[in-house]
């Protein structure tokens, strides 16, 4: 065997492993397959990439803001839509990571790209906390609506507690938690660059970073959901007892899915704090906690693409309504929710995708 051949042989399993993962971009758990779908997808990404050239800084920054929330939505999509556990408290992980980003960056500063370290640590903290809650719930045989109430309670406890941390005694290092008024003054994400750091204030640069992250997370989730892991999650959603009787440790799977959801909510939280240099306890309150559920349900929770597109649609739509709807905004919002739920039980985007027919159909049924 020549050297090259030997190397080839070594590389082969890796390559086939890679090919296997790539093949999982399509599968029974996700809508959309075939060249037509991917061309459409690429077109959407391309459009998203070039549109800042034709727009102003505010609009792009605002679009970046929409993207910030999509991670939490996709995370909830996994936990609720795929794994069947309705979490009413993704905002707990969102808020925790948001505060963590603030506390860490205020303490260690933003030089040398340390903000990215802070981002990673915050997301890790969100994930760890979610795993802990997940362990507590799933290994404690908590299920169904009880999961919603436990998670809601967790997020409300955090909110109520953080709201009263106004005094100077509530500080971590040099970072004052600052109670209900919220914490501010943390640096945005910065990229170390020759001749001075690039500061990612809300704007075009941040937008591109977020867009790239959304694409990566979306594709990653597609692969994960079509992998055996995703199959088991769906099986648990459909019939947990039977799934266990097929030899799966469903508690472990549920906990891992929950941890993933927590990590993604944490990513949103840290990015939100970095975007606006501000985080507040009300981001863990009842209204905030209900919003992700609305986004995901309206878009379509059983499909990650629908969740992603749907949440952007709803967030942008609600904001537009608030801008143009004056005092009727909330009424119209409410009416739209009732209407969409009645007309499209599977979610607006999911229903649209089904209508659009074959290219969006699920692969490999």
């Amino acid at each position, binding site marked *: 065997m020549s050297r090259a051949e030997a190397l080839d042989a070594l590389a082969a399993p890796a390559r086939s492993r890679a090919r296997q993962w790539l093949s999982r971009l399509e599968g029974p758990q996700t809508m959309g397959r075939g060249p037509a779908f991917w061309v459409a997808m690429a077109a959407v990404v391309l459009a998203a990439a070039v549109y800042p050239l034709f727009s102003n800084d505010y609009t792009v*920054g605002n679009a970046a*803001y929409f993207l910030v929330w999509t991670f939490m939505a996709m995370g909830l999509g996994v936990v609720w839509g795929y794994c069947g556990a309705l979490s009413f408290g993704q905002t707990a992980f969102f808020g925790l990571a948001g505060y963590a980003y603030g506390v860490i960056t205020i303490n260690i500063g933003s030089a040398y790209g340390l903000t990215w370290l802070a981002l990673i640590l915050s997301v890790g903290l969100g994930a760890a906390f979610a795993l802990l809650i997940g362990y507590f719930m799933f290994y404690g045989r908590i299920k169904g609506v009880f999961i919603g109430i436990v998670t809601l309670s967790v997020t409300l406890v955090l909110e109520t507690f953080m*709201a009263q941390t106004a005094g100077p005694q509530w500080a971590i290092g040099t970072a004052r938690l600052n*109670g209900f008024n*919220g914490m501010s003054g943390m640096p945005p994400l910065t990229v170390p660059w020759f001749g001075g750091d690039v500061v990612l204030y*809300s704007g075009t640069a941040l937008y591109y970073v977020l867009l790239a992250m959304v694409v990566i997370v979306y594709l990653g989730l597609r692969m994960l959901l079509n992998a055996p892991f995703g199959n088991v999650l769906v099986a648990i959603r459909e019939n947990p007892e039977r799934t266990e009787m097929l030899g799966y440790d469903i508690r472990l799977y549920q906990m891992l899915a929950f941890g993933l959801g927590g990590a993604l909510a944490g990513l949103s939280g840290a990015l939100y704090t970095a975007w606006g240099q501000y985080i*507040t306890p009300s*981001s863990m309150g009842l209204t905030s906690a209900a919003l992700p559920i609305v986004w995901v349900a309206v878009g379509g929770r059983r499909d990650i693409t629908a969740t992603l597109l749907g949440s952007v649609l709803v967030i942008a739509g609600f904001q537009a309504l608030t801008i143009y709807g*004056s*005092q009727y905004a909330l009424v119209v919002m409410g009416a739209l929710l009732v209407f969409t739920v009645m007309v499209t039980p599977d979610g607006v985007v999911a229903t649209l995708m089904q209508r659009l027919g074959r290219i969006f159909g699920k692969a490999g049924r």
Partner: protein
Amino acid sequence: QDGPIKIGVLEDQSGDFAAATAVKVHAIELATKEINDAGGIDGRPIELVVYDTQSDNRRYQEFMRRVLQQDEVDVVFAGFSSASREAYRPIVNQFDGLAFYNNQYEGGVCDANMIVTGAVPEQQFSTLIPWMMETYGPNVYTLAADYNFGQISAEWVRQIVEENGGTMAGEEFIPLGVSQFSQTIQNIQQSEADFVVTLLVGAAQASYYEQANAADVGLPMASSVNVGQGYEHKRFTPPSLADMYVTTNYIEEIDSPASQDFVERFRAMFPDEPYINQEAANSYIGINLYKQMVERAGSTDHDAIRAVLAEGDVCFDGPSGNVCLDPKSQHMSHTIFLAKVEDDHSITFPETWENIEPYWLGDAGCDLTQNDPSAQYTPSSPPPAP
């Protein structure tokens, strides 16, 4: 330039705080109409860009960006709760905008991009608490909303009580949204309090008054927020708010010609307005002060406007009398009225304090004519010594 002058307005016209803030938007509309009818600011009409922030801090962030970046307004009038102010303040700083916060609050914001027309503790508590102690006795029970506003206000009350030789009979903090007060009522009854300072925020907490009355607590009450903002005396059945004393820089019952004229003009434009509260007056005053500063500066440029402010004579004769902006803190002086709620919920004014300066920040070391820390200070965390 001579296009219109654009004023962004971000106020909670729906949600939790709507009861107290919807009227602020109307006050701004009234001032705008009057100014425009009289030829505008320096000949330029005012154009309002109004967004409903829905009592949601997130909306403040979204819309503050929008008015500054997209609508490119010259100035923003924004915010009811201190939390909302803190949500938008980093953004105002980031884009170097100018914002008016027309709301009474816990004080301490030292930020060159902010102008505050609302009353602050040295105006509301330094008057109210000594008067109450003298009238009813030295033992004070504070009941405050459990967040920055309530905690910092309570800190002020405590300090003033101690300075005046009184004692705190009790201090209790209530999480926002709590509406049941049976235990609190018993705590108060069990204490030796001579009067109760109520710093309750939001509609839910206001339920305290009805419940305390039903349990026959019977103690006089003092407040810096209630009545003057949320007109609880109009909403509750007499005599639940009887013996409530409030220091406010304006409410519609004030009987001066300027006040009555203001009320008349207001009701002519908004006949159904439930109540004209102090923040409505502050918002109205704010626009007029801004008009004056722009006219004197000859532009809407912030540096030019702050140069005018630094002269120290930016004053206005408004519904509550003459008020002036303090260059060091960019807060406003006020005539403070002590409003007493009678058994039938009518209002009397046992006392008035003319022209109280917002002196605390300046004394503590905030001087925006010299530097801009963009921070908020409290008695227990004052500005760093220079």
